[in-house]
C-alpha cells in the first residue's frame, strides 16, 4: 500500500477543532464511574491522582506530536511502516488496529450495560447495539468532516451537563478531603494508573494529525483539549469525594450517575435518566473516531472501500457484544483494556519516539556520508 497519505483539501480541518476532537474522544463511558477505581488506591487524595495522570498525559501528548512532526503528512500507521519497514510495521499496525477496535467494543458494551441497568432492564443488548451501530454507520459514511462535526456538537450539546453537577455540592462535606497527602505516594500513583481507562482517547491525535491544516497550532489545541477534560474530571472527582463517604464510594459503580440522580427541579426529577440517554451523543464521537482509526489502519493493508469496511466492522462488533453478558465479564474486559491501553497510549509512544529519532539520525549520517 502507499506510504504517505494523499488528503484532498476539502478533507482538512482547522486546528481549533482539535480541541473538540480530543475532548470528545476522552469523555466517554469512563466518566460514569471512575471515582471508585481511583478511590480504591488513593483514598481521599484521589483528586491528586487525577492531576498526576493528566500531567503525564500532557507529557505523552507532547512526545506523540513531536513524533508526528517528523513525518508531517503521515499518521501512526504510516510511521510504523516507514520506521520499521513493511513487515514489522504492519505487525505494529495490527496491534494498533486491535487496540482501536477493542476501545470501540469497550465503549459500546459499557454504554449498553448502563442503559440496561438504569433505564431499560428488558431491552435486549442486540437491539441497543444494532441501533447504535446503525447511527455509527450512517455517520461514518459521511466522511471525516462529519465525524469531526459530531465531536463539535457533542461538546456543544452537553455543555450544560457539568453545571448541574454543582447542585449536589450543597450536601458535600469539604472536610472529607482532609487530611491531605495522607496516603503513600505509591498509592496515589497507583490511583493515577487506574485513571487510564478514563483518560485515554487523546491518542486519536496519532491518526488525525495529517488532516490538520495548521500543523504549528496542533500542540496548543491538543493541550487545551486535555486541560478542559482535566477540569471536568477534577471537578467531578472533588464533588464525588466530598459528597460520598469513603465506604459509600467504594461500593458505587457509577458514582457520577448517582450524583445526577439526586438532582431535582420543579418540573423534572431523576435527571440521570435524561443524561444517560443524552450520553449517546457523548459516546458517538468515541465510537465514530475509533471506528475511523481502525479503518485508517485496515486500508493500509487491505484494499477495501470504507462502506464495506464499516459494515463488516459493525457486524463483527455486534457478534462480540452478544458474547459479553455478565457484569463481571465487563469488569474483566475493562480491566484488560485499561492495562493494554496503558501500554499502547502511555508507554508505546516513548518507544516509537526513540525509534524515530534513531532512524532519523541514522538517515542523516547516511546522507552526510
Amino acid at each position, binding site marked *: 500500500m502507499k506510504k504517505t497519505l494523499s488528503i484532498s483539501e476539502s478533507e482538512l480541518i482547522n486546528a481549533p477543532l482539535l480541541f473538540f476532537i480530543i475532548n470528545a474522544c476522552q469523555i466517554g463511558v469512563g466518566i460514569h464511574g471512575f471515582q471508585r477505581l481511583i478511590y480504591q488506591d488513593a483514598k481521599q487524595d484521589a483528586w491528586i491522582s487525577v492531576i498526576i495522570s493528566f500531567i503525564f498525559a500532557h507529557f505523552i501528548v507532547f512526545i506523540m506530536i513531536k513524533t508526528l512532526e517528523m513525518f508531517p503528512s503521515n499518521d501512526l500507521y504510516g510511521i510504523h511502516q516507514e520506521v520499521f519497514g513493511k513487515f514489522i510495521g504492519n505487525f505494529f499496525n495490527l496491534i494498533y488496529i486491535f487496540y482501536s477496535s477493542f476501545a470501540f467494543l469497550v465503549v459500546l458494551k459499557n454504554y449498553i450495560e448502563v442503559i440496561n441497568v438504569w433505564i431499560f432492564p428488558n431491552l435486549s443488548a442486540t437491539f441497543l447495539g444494532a441501533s447504535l451501530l446503525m447511527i455509527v454507520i450512517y455517520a461514518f459514511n459521511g466522511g471525516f468532516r462529519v465525524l469531526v462535526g459530531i465531536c463539535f456538537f457533542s461538546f456543544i450539546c452537553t455543555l450544560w451537563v457539568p453545571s448541574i453537577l454543582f447542585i449536589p455540592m450543597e450536601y458535600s462535606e469539604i472536610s472529607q478531603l482532609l487530611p491531605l497527602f495522607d496516603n503513600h505516594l505509591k498509592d496515589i500513583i497507583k490511583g493515577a494508573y487506574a485513571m487510564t481507562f478514563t483518560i485515554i482517547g487523546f491518542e486519536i491525535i496519532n491518526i488525525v494529525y495529517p488532516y490538520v491544516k495548521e500543523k504549528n497550532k496542533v500542540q496548543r489545541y491538543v493541550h487545551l483539549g486535555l486541560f478542559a477534560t482535566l477540569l471536568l474530571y477534577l471537578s467531578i472527582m472533588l464533588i464525588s469525594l466530598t459528597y460520598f463517604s469513603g465506604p459509600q464510594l467504594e461500593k458505587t459503580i457509577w458514582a457520577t450517575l448517582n450524583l445526577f440522580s439526586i438532582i431535582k427541579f420543579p418540573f423534572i426529577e431523576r435527571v440521570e435518566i435524561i443524561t444517560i*440517554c443524552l450520553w449517546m451523543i457523548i459516546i458517538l464521537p468515541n465510537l465514530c473516531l475509533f471506528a475511523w482509526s481502525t479503518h485508517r489502519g485496515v486500508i493500509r493493508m487491505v484494499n477495501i472501500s470504507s462502506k464495506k469496511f464499516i459494515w463488516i466492522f459493525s457486524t463483527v462488533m455486534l457478534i462480540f457484544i452478544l458474547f459479553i453478558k455478565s457484569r463481571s465479564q465487563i469488569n474483566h474486559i475493562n480491566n484488560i483494556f485499561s492495562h493494554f491501553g496503558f501500554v499502547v497510549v502511555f508507554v508505546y509512544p516513548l518507544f516509537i519516539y526513540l525509534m524515530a529519532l534513531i532512524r532519523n539520525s541514522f538517515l542523516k549520517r547516511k546522507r552526510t556520508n
Partner: protein
Amino acid sequence: MFKKIQQKILPNEEKPEYNPPKIPVPPLKNDFINELKKIIHSPADLVIRFVTNNITIAFIDGLIETQSLDDNILARFEDTSDETPSTLRERISIPEVNVFDEMIQCIDEMLIGAVLIHINGHPQVVLAKIPSYEKRSLEAPENESQVIGTQVGFNESLNTNITLIRRFITNPNLCNEHFTLGKETRTSVSVLYIHGIVDEKHVNTVRQRIKDLDIVDLIDSAILAELIDDSSSSIFPQTLLTERPDRFCDGLLTGKVGIIVNGSSMGIICPFSFLEFFQSREDQNLRWPIASFIRLLRFAAIIVSIFFTPIYVASLTFHYEVIPQPMLVPLSESRAIVPFPPIIEALFLELVIELLREAGARLPTKVGQTIGIVGGIVIGTAAVQAGITSNILIIIVALGALASFTTPNYMMGNVIRIIRFPIIVLAGFWGYYGIMLAFCFLLIHLLKQSSLGAPYLAPFYPPRLKDWPDSIVRLPLPFISRHSVNSRSRKEIEKSKKKKNTKKQRQNSNLTPENKEKVIE
C-alpha cells in the same frame, strides 16, 4: 442508496441537444404564409395582415403591444416597391429589430412577442420586438408578511422582478445571465449575482447545474430549486424560495446567487444554510435586543415543536419517575379515562392538527375561519370529553403546531412539523433512548448536507466565529460582518486581511433599511 436509485431512474446518458430543422424563409408572399401556418399549426390567435401589396405582417394576438405596433411600425411603412429588409429595419424606431432568414428562429421570437414583417421577394424577415407583458400588479407578499419593512412582493413577470431588484441595487456589478429551460415550455430563467461580492465558485456551480438540466417543462421556480439542490432526497430544503425582493437582494448582497424564473413569483437564493431559514428579513429592521429575543424564541420554538410531544409520549410510556409527584397527579388524572397508550393518542392528535392545517390551506379564506372553530373547539373539546385524548396532550400538541408556524420559511416549517412523526413513534417504542436516536440521526443528517457545496450547518460547523453575531442572535449592526465568510470572494478576503478602510467599507456595504426604503421610493 437514494442516489443509486435515482441514477437508475434517470440514466445519466448524454442526450443530443435540441436542434430543430432549419427552414429558410420563402421569398414569395404566399409561400411564406403557408409555411408559417404549417409550422405553428395555424392557431386562432395568429394574425396575418397585408399592409401593402408587398408587405405582410404576422404576430400572435395578445403577445404584442398594439399601440406600439401602430405608432412605431405601421406608421413607418412607405408604399414603395424597392423596400428591402435592411432599409425597413433602419426605419422602424423600436429598440430591438432584427433580420432573420430562418423560419423556426422567427417563430420562436414571435412566440415571445415579436412582429414578423415579410417583404415579397426577399428571403428574409424583419423581426420587431414589442412584447406586452400581462401581469398582476405588485402586491404585498402574503406568505412572508412582516410588520416593519418594505411591503412589496415579486409577481409572475421576470422583467418586473428584475426591475424590482435593480431598484434595490443600482450597481453596475449586478450581473444577469439568461438561460432558457424546458424543451416544451422554453421558460426564461435569470441568474443574478453581484460581481465582486459573490464567490465565483458558486456562480459556476449554478451555471453548470442549470446547463446540465434536461427537462421537458419548468412551470415554477420551486421545481428548479429542487432540481439544482445538492441532495434532492433530503427532507430539508437547501435553497431559499422567497417572494420578497428585499430578502432576495439581501441574499445577493451577502454574496449569494439568485435565480428568477419567468412565470413564478418566487425567487431562488442559494447557497443557503440551515440557520438562515430561521432568520427573517425583519430581524435586521428591528432593534437588536428585540430581534435577538425573537430569534431565540424561534429556536426555542423549533425544539418545542420537534421534541415536546415525543417527550410527553416517552415520559408517560416509560419514564414516570422523571415527572415530579405534584405534576404526576394532574397528568394521570387527565389520562385516567383514555383507553389508548400515549403513542396512539399523540399520533391521533398530531394527525388531526395536520388535517386542520391542510384543510385550512386549501379552503377559501372565509371558510377557513370556520375550520378553525370546528377544529379547535368542536374536535378538541369533544375529544377530551369522549375520553379519546387527555387535556394536557391537547395543550402540548397545539403548542407544538403553533411553534412550528413561527419558522419564517414555509418550506422549513413543513419539515419541522413532519419530522415529529417518526420521533413520536421512536419515543413510543424506546422512550428517551428512541428520541436520542432520532436526534443523533437528525444531527448527522444535517452535518452531511451541503448547499452548493457549502456546509449546511455553517456558521456553527465548521465554526466561523465571524458570522456568529448574526446567527441565533442578532448583535448591533457594526458587529455584523456583512458578508458571511461562507460566501465571500477572494477579493473580499484579501481586503479584510489588509484591514484598510474597514470602517468605511462597512458603511458602504451596509445598506441600512432606511436607505433601502429610500431607494424603492
